[in-house]
């Protein structure tokens, strides 16, 4: 069993079933399995001097700890701590040494490109938060009885077909 931190408000299995049936009335769902995906949330603060200080802002960068991909986050959810089975958790394979400089560059580059102000901002890492996001792995059968999988995000119900 592993102890992880994850979002408190998530969709439940019935919701997931509903979402999928909404897309495809004849969908054949075999199993729905929860999977926990590791991320780290990095809060960066950008400070500019003088008149430009009104452009000071915080940027939240979420890093996918399996592939290292960065994305800008919107809003901070509520977390709870819970225990889950080992096989339900994807192992993180990106270390701090790898993601810290990469994320910093990512937000810096975004900031530079978007703000178009050619002054060096002072960038500080204000917070680091490790968490796992719940996904539902749904196994389905298609019209020819082959298996396919759908991964559904428990936060917003968005989904992706797995190949």
């Amino acid at each position, binding site marked *: 069993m592993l102890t992880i931190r994850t979002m408190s408000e998530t969709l439940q299995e019935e919701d997931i079933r509903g979402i999928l049936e909404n897309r495809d009335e004849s969908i054949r769902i075999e199993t729905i399995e929860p999977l926990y995906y590791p991320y780290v949330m990095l809060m960066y603060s950008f400070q500019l001097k003088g008149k430009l200080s009104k452009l000071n802002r915080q940027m939240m960068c979420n890093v996918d700890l399996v592939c290292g991909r960065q*994305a*800008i986050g919107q809003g901070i959810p509520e977390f709870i701590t819970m225990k889950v089975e080992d096989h339900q958790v994807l192992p993180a394979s990106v270390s701090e040494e790898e993601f810290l400089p990469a994320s910093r560059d990512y937000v810096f580059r*975004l900031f530079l*490109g*978007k703000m178009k102000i050619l002054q060096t901002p002072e960038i500080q890492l204000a917070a680091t938060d490790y968490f796992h996001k719940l996904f539902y792995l749904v196994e389905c059968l298609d019209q020819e009885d082959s298996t396919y999988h759908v991964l559904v995000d428990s936060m917003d119900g968005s989904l992706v077909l797995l190949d």
Partner: protein
Amino acid sequence: MIFGMPTISFLAFLSWPLTFTVTALIIYYFMAKQDALTDDSEFEGEVKH
């Protein structure tokens, strides 16, 4: 002579606005037909910058 130009000159230089507009309309029609069969909602909405 059209508009004081040799016909070949007129066609070579000034027939294009009509040609291109018509072409664009035809291509629009075909692209719309293709788009109707394509599912693009994963690509819709904001492009992440």
